[in-house]
């Protein structure tokens, strides 16, 4: 896979995930899966976690307005790099969504939910951040 395609795919995935998780929390609150204090606490924990990663993607998207800028990243990437870059954000987002579902269906208490979120952030957040930083670090101006 070439770098520009990986960047685009991961950017879209992160932005969509961020919106979906945000909407998931709102919908669950409206259906009675979360009380008001639980909803506000969940938002304040989950949204900053995702925003840090989505910020990298949005930063990249805003710098590649033109197709020519995107074409600058046409190098073929190693399989292991592509695999890791896909795996970590997907697991991270799925873990957050899974925890929200577990909480609203009462498979986890709110305390367990908060502790598990912190664990997920510690386990995957740091690795995911590192991988995405390596992917989005290069600016298109430098490649011109």
């Amino acid at each position, binding site marked *: 896979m070439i770098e520009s395609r990986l960047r685009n795919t991961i950017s879209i995935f992160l932005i969509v995930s961020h919106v979906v998780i945000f909407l998931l929390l709102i919908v669950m609150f409206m259906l009675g899966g979360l009380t008001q204090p639980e909803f506000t606490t969940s938002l304040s924990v989950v949204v900053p976690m995702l925003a840090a990663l989505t910020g990298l993607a949005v930063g990249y998207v805003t710098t590649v307005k033109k197709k020519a800028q995107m074409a600058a990243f046409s190098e073929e990437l190693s399989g292991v790099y592509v695999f890791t870059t896909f795996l970590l954000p997907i697991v991270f987002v799925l873990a957050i969504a899974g925890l929200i579902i577990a909480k*609203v*269906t009462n498979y986890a208490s709110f305390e367990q939910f908060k502790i598990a979120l912190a664990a997920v952030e510690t386990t995957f957040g740091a690795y995911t951040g590192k991988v995405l930083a390596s992917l989005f670090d290069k600016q298109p101006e430098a490649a011109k």
Partner: protein
Amino acid sequence: MTPVLSLCTRPLAILLLLAGIVTAQTQSPAAIPESAQSDFQKWLREAHLVEHLDFQKLRRISTSSVTKDDPAKRSLQLALLFLTDETEETKAVGKFVSLLNQYQVTNGVSLPETIFYKLIQTCDWPRADAVVEIFVLEDTFAVYLDSATRQVVIREINQRDSVRQPITLPLTAVTASSGPGLAVLKGAKPTDPNTLARKIEGFFENYFVEANRKAQLHDPQFSPEPIEADYVGLKVAGVKRQVLPSDNYWEKITISVEIKSVPEGQKLVCYLSGKYASGLFGRLPSDNDYADIEESKLRSFTGTILRRLQDYFAAGAP
């Protein structure tokens, strides 16, 4: 083989015997729930009682069942201090009595009973083993279930932890015949003393079962207290939209109904407390996830359910 078996079984038998003795002596829960103190203080604030009553302590003491007739020996003890600027005992007691009367006139129920039932509901404690002590300067008033009359009474006790003599407080009689927590059932007293209590318990169970069936939910979980002729205690879990009709939250409701004889028939005084927690589908939340339901919403629900109960008895309680 026999001596070996005998050696093994003897300690086991002693352990079982000891366990049996311990179980027989400790009918009350082992500990007060962690959140009970803060929950009770929160309720005092919400009920605007903190201006008059200061929370002192809530404790569990170990007592033997032999001394349970003495209110000071009951295992769950709540201590409250009556706040007054009076320095003279008689005047302070007078002010305390005025507060009790004012509460009864305003709310239609007795303040000592309200505090007592709030305590046993918050701590999930048997009512025969709890006492509320209210300090009025040097005097102490105990609110407890009198084992002889089977009524919650308020009596002055002395400082040496023994009952001195009961004094009758000049309390105003209830003026409202039917308030949010009161219902009068007309008619003669049934011959079996437990019949009315059983019917009331049955009514509540049917009420919640039907409500859940209409909402296509599983049947609720009931934890009834042992039937008494003049008391019905019931905990209901796994219901939705009863006290909070606009929210899809799980509700846990604790109902205590005192049955009192009045000239018109039987007067029911209902004390309700409720908690709510979030959750979709059929799995119930863990106990720690529940939060208290506001007093105003509980009052409204109490009024509704008691009206339904009156209608049920008016229709002959089939």
